[in-house]
């Protein structure tokens, strides 16, 4: 059975599509809203903003997160900023330009209508956040300050020091807690969603595990929202928080939600290089550093001199050389790949030659140490804390690391998945960023989805269904609950010889090697053989100590890794089938003469939407064609 992929893109000119859609949407009257219940899984920017806003509207909302508090969701770690087409700087920005930059940055693999809407509501986000008390950086005159970010030639990024994600999340969290106080949102912290329940073809609830007591519970509702973030932790080492996982979206996929472009992952160019085998995660250094930092490697291969002893004429500022128009501010995928190429050719620095310099010497000379400290102080401190080196006097060493996943559950223009009643917001969905996300756009998308899109599209959906009419004694709920309990029991009964982390690390190595910054058919085929073997071994030989009816962090990890072991395979399959290079998906067989990504618009100007076909059966690849009515497909050039 193939999906019917109706994107529900409204008619009319680009600038009027969202207006037209809103005009045509059905409404639920204020008196009826409290009869409807909505589950929101995840409490990051998308989840918290959605839960708060739906609560304000008067719906009954339950919100779930695995952390001990909704304030800790990983949106909190976003550093650099949030884009909005305010044109406060009078430098030529507009909704259209933000739209175009985002489409182009994504290498023409996103829907025009979605991206335009995103750019349109970006301005409302800033208004909303300022009103909530988000302490954005300001000029002496009292107006909001901006900085520039990769892939743009205007300054449209709003920021709160290097902690923009934290401040935006606290704004959304406070709005959420206000609704908790008002009794409109019930918060379930330390709860993990372990399955989705579909009744008569509609998403009607979830099964959760209470991470403190181990209790497995069912929650029934009229609609379910997944805002559970990305799946970068498939790679084991990434900039994601340790708990970030794909279980919610993967369970939904196995219940019939299409998975869009799983191979589209973003490798962020500026992260602190790995220092040893014990490494548990990688730390990002904000892209905003590329505003003032200059990236270089020594011109001589294997140069072991101290960076400060290498004279100017013996340094290769390779991004400025290769991309003179954008220089150090070229998009992330391009900067990452360039770093990899330089290191592969033997110019890398630091242990194993896996690093390049990010140097602030010139900026400090030009602007003074105080200005640099004001702009990036907390990032410099973080770098020094981790590496023990002072970036004010010695250039930072950086290397690319897995950061964000553009792929995710397929959604239509209403952010609804292929399962009616299941909505997917933020990084968890596939939309808006195409094959590469521009910096400062993730925060924008999460909040756009939660504050300004879902309140309309959810109402439209609910207005067409009757509230309630179901409880957890329904056979589908009982079956889902039983499946969760059996899986937990199975994981605890294996008592093998290897730890969960052993398997996760091994999966990460395979993914990084064959499905990382550069991919090719033979490597992907090898990975597609290795991953099922590893998965089989996992289910034979993993050791999960403890029991299911208590706080058990090993069990939590085991469930997540079991899902990664399936998702990783789908990512490789998608990467193999997409025989072109675009954005973060670089197939070595498809590159231009000067090593840039070479798209194949004839064959691949579409979204690949994968459909689960049953255990042990190959998934089905469906296609949603991307029609570009308003922009010209062009080869990306940042030269």
């Amino acid at each position, binding site marked *: 059975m193939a999906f019917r992929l109706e994107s529900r893109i409204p008619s009319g000119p680009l600038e009027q599509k969202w207006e037209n859609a809103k005009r045509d949407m059905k409404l639920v009257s204020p008196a009826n809203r409290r009869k409807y219940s909505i589950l929101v899984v995840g409490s990051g920017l998308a989840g918290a903003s959605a839960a708060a806003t739906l609560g304000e509207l008067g719906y009954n909302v339950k919100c779930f997160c695995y952390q001990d508090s909704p304030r*800790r969701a990983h949106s909190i*770690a976003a550093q650099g900023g949030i884009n909005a087409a305010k044109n406060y700087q009078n430098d030529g920005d507009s909704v259209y330009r933000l739209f175009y930059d985002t489409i182009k940055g994504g290498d023409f693999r996103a829907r025009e209508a979605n991206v335009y809407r995103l750019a349109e509501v970006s301005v409302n986000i800033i208004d909303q956040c300022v009103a909530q008390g988000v302490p954005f950086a300001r000029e002496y005159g009292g107006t909001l300050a901006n900085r520039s970010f990769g892939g743009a030639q205007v300054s449209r990024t709003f920021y*709160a020091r290097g902690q923009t994600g934290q401040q935006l999340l*606290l704004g959304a969290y406070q709005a959420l807690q206000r609704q908790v106080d008002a009794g409109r949102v019930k918060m379930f912290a330390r709860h993990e969603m372990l399955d989705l329940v579909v009744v008569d073809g509609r998403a009607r609830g979830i099964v959760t595990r209470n991470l403190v007591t181990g209790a497995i519970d069912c929650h029934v509702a009229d609609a379910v929202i997944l805002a559970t973030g990305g799946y970068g932790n498939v790679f084991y080492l990434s900039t994601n928080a*340790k708990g970030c996982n794909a279980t919610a979206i993967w369970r939904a996929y196995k219940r019939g939600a299409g998975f869009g472009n799983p191979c589209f992952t973003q490798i962020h160019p500026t992260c602190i290089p790995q220092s040893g085998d014990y490494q548990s995660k990688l730390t990002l250094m904000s892209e905003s550093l590329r505003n003032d930092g200059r990236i270089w490697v020594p011109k001589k291969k294997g140069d072991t001199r101290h960076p400060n002893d290498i004279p100017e004429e013996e340094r290769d500022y390779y991004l400025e050389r290769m991309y003179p128009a954008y220089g150090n501010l070229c998009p992330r995928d391009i900067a990452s790949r360039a770093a990899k190429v330089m290191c592969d050719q033997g110019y890398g620095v630091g242990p194993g030659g896996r690093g390049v310099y990010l140097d602030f010497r010139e900026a400090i000379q030009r602007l003074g140490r105080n200005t640099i400290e004001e702009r990036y102080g907390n990032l410099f401190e*973080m770098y020094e804390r981790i590496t023990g080196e002072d970036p004010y006097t010695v250039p930072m060493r950086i290397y690319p690391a897995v950061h964000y996943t553009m792929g995710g559950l397929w959604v239509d223009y209403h952010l609804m998945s292929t399962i009616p009643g299941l909505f997917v917001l933020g990084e968890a969905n596939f939309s808006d960023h195409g094959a590469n996300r521009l910096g400062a756009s993730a925060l924008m998308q999460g909040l756009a989805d939660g504050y300004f899109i879902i309140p309309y599209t959810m109402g439209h959906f609910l207005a067409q269904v009757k509230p309630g009419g179901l409880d957890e004694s329904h056979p589908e709920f009982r079956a889902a609950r039983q499946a969760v309990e059996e899986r937990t029991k199975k994981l605890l009964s294996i008592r093998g010889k290897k730890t969960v982390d052993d398997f996760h690390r091994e999966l990460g190595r395979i993914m990084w090697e064959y499905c990382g910054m550069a991919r090719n058919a033979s490597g992907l085929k090898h990975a597609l053989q290795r991953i099922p073997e590893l998965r089989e071994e996992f289910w034979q030989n993993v050791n999960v100590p403890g029991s299911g009816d208590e706080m058990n962090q090993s069990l939590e990890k085991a469930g997540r890794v079991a899902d990664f072991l399936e998702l990783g395979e789908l990512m490789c399959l998608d990467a193999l089938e997409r025989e072109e290079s675009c954005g973060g998906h670089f197939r070595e067989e498809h590159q231009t003469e000067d090593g840039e990504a070479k798209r194949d618009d004839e064959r691949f100007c579409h979204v690949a939407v994968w459909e689960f076909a049953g255990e042990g059966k190959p998934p089905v690849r469906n296609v949603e064609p991307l029609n570009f009515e308003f922009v010209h497909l062009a080869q990306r050039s940042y030269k």
Partner: protein
Amino acid sequence: MKIILNIWRQKNASSPGRMVRYELDNVNEHMSFLEMLDVLNEELTRKGEDPVAFEHDCREGICGCCGFMINGIPHGPERGTTVCQLHMRHFQDGDELWLEPFRAKAFPIIKDLMVDRSAFDRIISAGGYISINTGSAPEANSIPVKKQCADRAMDAAACIGCGACVAACPNASASLFVSAKIAHLGLLPQGEPERDRRALRMVLKMTEEGFGYCTNTGECEAICPKGVKIENIAMMHRDFTRAVALFREEAKVGGTG
């Protein structure tokens, strides 16, 4: 290098706990403290023992999940550092360390080094926000904000809600945490209309949750990994006092100490 760890092990809230000694050889100086615990947990798992439960997530010092006592100091000996960002290069070969959970009446123990800090969420719920529904915000630049105010608000807003201030305080007061939110929102024109009510409700909630009063010891500021300043507590006292005069009925119980 070699590190000796004495770790508080407690199965759950209702079981008694005890210190258990572990010896770790081959600790690498570039490891983070939590990576060292990962190594210990891998060893324990291989031996079929229960790994040590500790809270952590972002491991970048921003989510506020992590935190326990190392030799009696929340987040350990390095100033301005969460335990996830604390690296082993700050310790000596042969060091013996005592790891305990944050202790406070309002932070009941869940397991080993994990405590329940949900009281913080309830305090925020009581008023740590600006009441503005989505969609009703005015144009962002229509209200100018003094740069100094925005910067000071940001200093206070940098709080990560880890609870180290409570653990360090001899009274287990949450005053630094509460005052950071009161100052953050109170310094901005957007937060002004609810300033008194916010201070009143948050302070009363703090007392109700079982946190102690502030007696100006200053331990909280000294250990705060984000450098949140005790001057916020002065602001809280002032706002609370003013609020008590305005809202006599609501203010019958409690105080800031």
